[in-house]
């Protein structure tokens, strides 16, 4: 074995950071507010597709260079142009990256917002899950067949992360720090959110929106807000996902991505942002560990079977967890604000 622990750690943590953003967003939406967002891949992909578009359209403008059509016969030149700008003009790369984050977040937020109103018509809550799930597929199929966005099924390569100019390990460390910072902000936000009256409102809506409505809560608006927030976070993770990979392609944003995020949230503990982090961490580590195990077993002379067993193992762990720890590793706290603590202190005090 010849393991580069540092590089592996960086890689795993980067994935952890990106996935934990997805998990945090789903945790707010489903874990707290009960909106079964089975369209995570959709909102993540919006971030990625935005990246594909800004890197081919916006980046040359910011750098003051001519636009080169990213698909077809000028493809190699367009790639060259992108890599040049990113490597030699870090400021432009950063500005472009920043704008991408903002645009992606806003577009995705608006789409999430719109969805939440669209689905007010739905009769049963879990229909929303289906609508979002297939909505993601519809968008994916559309983008895959629609040249102007990301060159249809060819995808857009050379969409590097903004620190790429630093080169080598320092670039990946810098990017990792950025990812973790963003994830941390999202985490703190969601943690505080559920510990507030807003969190209480979301929980109430999760349990019985009809009753919440008769108790004076504007359910539609609140759900729309939640979808807006969740979709924004998801799209940001999508941008990070795309630039970390350096490639935007529809093949990555399939139903399995959504299901993976669900697994993270359920595993970690619904309704608990720490659980979302933990779930993302467990999956990031488990994914890498089993991949390493597969490689090592194969090198030790076993066949390739472990690549299949890996998935079986994953499923079995998931099932066992859900079975024996249905609340997830970290269960949802019973109450929302600190009012309970105050009351307990007072009532036991006298």
């Amino acid at each position: 074995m010849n393991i580069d622990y540092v590089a592996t750690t960086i890689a795993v943590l980067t994935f952890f950071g990106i996935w934990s953003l997805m998990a945090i967003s789903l945790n707010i939406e489903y874990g707290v507010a009960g909106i079964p967002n089975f369209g995570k891949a959709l909102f993540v992909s919006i971030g990625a597709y935005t990246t594909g578009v800004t890197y081919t359209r916006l980046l040359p403008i910011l750098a003051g260079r001519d636009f080169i059509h990213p698909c077809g016969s000028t493809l190699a030149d367009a790639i060259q142009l992108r890599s040049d700008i990113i490597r030699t003009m870090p400021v432009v790369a950063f500005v472009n990256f920043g704008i991408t984050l903002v645009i992606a977040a806003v577009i995705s937020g608006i789409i999430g917002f719109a969805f939440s109103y669209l689905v007010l018509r739905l009769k049963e809550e879990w229909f929303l899950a289906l609508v979002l799930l297939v909505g993601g597929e519809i968008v994916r199929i559309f983008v895959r067949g629609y040249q102007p966005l990301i060159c249809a099924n060819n995808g857009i390569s050379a969409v590097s992360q903004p620190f790429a100019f630093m080169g080598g390990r320092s670039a990946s460390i810098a990017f990792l720090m950025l990812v973790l910072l963003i994830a941390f902000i999202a985490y703190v936000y969601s943690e505080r959110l559920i510990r507030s009256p807003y969190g209480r409102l979301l929980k109430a809506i999760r349990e019985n929106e009809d009753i919440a409505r008769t108790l004076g809560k504007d359910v539609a608006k609140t759900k729309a807000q939640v979808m807006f927030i969740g979709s924004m976070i998801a799209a940001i993770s999508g941008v990070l996902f795309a630039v970390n990979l350096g490639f935007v392609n529809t093949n990555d944003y399939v139903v399995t991505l959504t299901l993976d995020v669900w697994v993270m949230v359920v595993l970690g503990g619904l309704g608990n942002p720490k659980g979302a982090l933990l779930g993302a961490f467990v999956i990031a580590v488990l994914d890498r560990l089993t991949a390493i195990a597969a490689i090592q077993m194969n090198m030790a002379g076993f066949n390739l079977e472990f690549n299949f067993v890996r998935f079986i193992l994953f499923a079995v762990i998931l099932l066992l967890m859900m079975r024996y720890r249905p609340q997830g590793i970290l269960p949802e706290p019973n109450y929302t604000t600190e009012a309970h603590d105050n009351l307990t202190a007072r009532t036991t005090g006298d």
Partner: protein
Amino acid sequence: QDDVETYVLGVAQPFTGPLGSFGTDFTRGIELAVMQMNAELEASGVNIRFEVASADTEGTPDGAARAVQTIVQTTGAEVIVGPLTTSEVLGAKQFADENGVVIVAPASSGIPGAIPGDNIFRVMYPPDNFAALAFAEIARSRGYENIAILHVDDPFGNGLAERFTIDFQAAGGGEVTTIAYSPEPPDLSGEATALSADVAQLSGSGNTAVFCICFLADAQKLLQVAQIDPILTTVEWMGVENLVSPDLLADAGHAQFLQSVNFISVSFTDTATPLTSPFIESFTAEYGDPPGPFTNYAFDAANIAMLTMLAAGNDGDAVTGMLPFVANHYIGTSVQAYLDDNGDQAIAFYGIFRVADDASSFIEIGTYNGSTGLLEMNE
């Protein structure tokens, strides 16, 4: 022998996901190459051995990136053979470029991968434009005036269909219609109907043939419908290299159909190369089954990678510099390699195949040389 040095050869292939069936065969080809190489090295007393570290790309770009990362970071490999498709290759590209890792992709041929100056080499399997030319030539030589194409809607299928149309019409062909189907189709009934309509319409203006640019499983689905279609059974068929597989003939009905429509295909497996039959023999001896389509490219890619490493060491940057030179001096089980500016195979020498009379296998009936444009038919 303590001073034996071991180089790890990374293998990133899809083992799971829709392309799962390819990965295993590919990896076998690579392992066979490594085995043979190690035996030679030992026999010659060279103190270097190769070891295979293979990881699963799950068939997605992201999966490919993670697979390559994991191999490189946990085994010290700097040279990776694989992945299979162009989008997987592009998924792994950024990591490879940034970390001086060399990707030797045996079968990716999509146009978006044709990028000069990167760490990606697409040895052996030529870019699709050669295959397009070959098919255009065959079509003309068989007297097809119009072609109805059914192709998979991915970089490979789109690229080939597009190029073919250009080449075919440049060679004096008539009308071409295309139907693109989405990858991994549950079934192809609707597409078959459309295809049959296209054929019916094209037949009005001349001799028409069907050109199927599809994966094996999709071809099976198509044939299941086509073999009872009143129109599709009446015209001749061409199909891409994937289909030159005994698996396609396993179904008696399909074999019979392919025979009756004069099915013709090209394959890079050129029996003219002295290495072809030894490869097939040793592969069959080792694994019990003959190699699947493309497996020979994996075998060749592994050999080029290893030979380069023997010269340049386990050092990605050195391998990047050295690889074109080695490749250009390599004779493979299919054909010689010669890399262009993009690091892609520039030689294309195809065998032309049809279904044998007993419908049990494919037999070669001619060759096509992509560099010279020479088509030779034996029958």
